[in-house]
């Protein structure tokens, strides 16, 4: 998918340059782009490293686990009866969401895949997504992030006045997306049941 998009964007750009007869502009844009990217990456390297250090402290000190504990009751409501049917699945889901919330997306993916495997083990029709899986995917797709560290780093790299002032709007936006996702989850689920 991204293959096609990248190809179309670049080809359309080159073609537009050619139609305009501005071949020098094209070459200039090419070298400028590469140089600017490297400058940005250098700025990003330092700030990202510092944030990752802070995140590591969250992981090691048990803040992530504490967050998981706080999330548990909410998860029990979102995944009714799952605790009785497969405790490990609920545990992985909670850890996946807790790590995602702290912006540790590399750590989150293994938990997520684990959760899917556990959910699959109690899935009656193996080829078909279970309700639990869908709820999990939807929550995952609109995951609240307390610290969008990468975004803050890039904003700092581009010398924003207050790189972190997007945190609160980001949290509110995610909650909006999450709640609407869960509402549509319920609506579609009801429709699915009615169709059968």
């Amino acid at each position, binding site marked *: 998918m991204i293959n096609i998009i*990248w190809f179309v964007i*670049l080809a*359309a*750009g080159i073609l537009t*340059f050619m139609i305009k007869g501005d071949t020098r502009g*094209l070459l200039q844009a090419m070298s400028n782009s590469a140089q*600017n*990217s490297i400058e940005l*990456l250098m700025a*990003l390297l330092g700030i*990202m*490293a*510092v944030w990752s*250090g*802070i*995140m*590591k402290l969250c992981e*090691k000190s*048990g*803040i992530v686990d504490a967050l998981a504990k706080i999330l548990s009751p909410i998860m029990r409501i979102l995944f009714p009866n799952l605790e009785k049917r497969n405790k490990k699945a609920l545990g992985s889901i909670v850890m996946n969401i807790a790590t995602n919330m702290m912006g540790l997306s*590399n750590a989150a993916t293994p938990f*997520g*895949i684990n959760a899917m*495997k556990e959910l*699959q083990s109690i899935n009656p029709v*193996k*080829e*078909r*997504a279970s309700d639990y*899986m*869908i709820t999990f995917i*939807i929550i995952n*797709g*609109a995951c609240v992030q307390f610290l969008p560290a*990468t975004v803050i780093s*890039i*904003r700092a790299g*581009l010398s*924003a*006045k*207050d790189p*972190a*002032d*997007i*945190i*609160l*709007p*980001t949290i*509110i*936006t*995610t909650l*909006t*997306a*999450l709640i*609407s*996702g869960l509402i*549509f*989850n319920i609506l579609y*689920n009801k429709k*699915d049941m009615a169709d059968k």
Partner: protein
Amino acid sequence: MNIGVYFLPLLILFILIYSFVKKVRVYETFIEGVKEGFASVYSIAPYLLTMLFAIDIFRKSGAMDYFIYVLKPMSKVLKIPEGVIPMILIKPLSGSGALGVMTDIMKQYGVDSIEGRIAAVMMGSTETIFYTISIYFGSVNVKDIRYSLKASLIAHIIGSLAAVYICYYFFR
């Protein structure tokens, strides 16, 4: 937004003190994280450069203006600044792509412009749905994903609109 200014320093202080009290070897642990941070910038670097490269050519050539022009009526009705439209379209598809688009928007309109801020909020608020769905369902061989994509996409659209209006509220 005075409280907001203190949120981050307080959070970092809390994390630091909490870790220290919990007898985490803060210095070594931080270094461990820094190593991971270097590694993650290293791993996103090729994606960022590649995506920014294509977007730069697309924008500098003027093709981006035509593209935005076509979508203008829609963005006008919904009061979305036209500059952030590429962000809404790319976010569900590719995280690294979205990172590139966000950076491009910030450079183009300014990091503290409304466009730049909306892009930042969008970047932090929704996941790359197609990627997540393909990885997660792929890992357990589920072929019938039912309404999960539909519901996620609706959440993405509502989230994108929310990002726009919430940023208007906060930053204007």
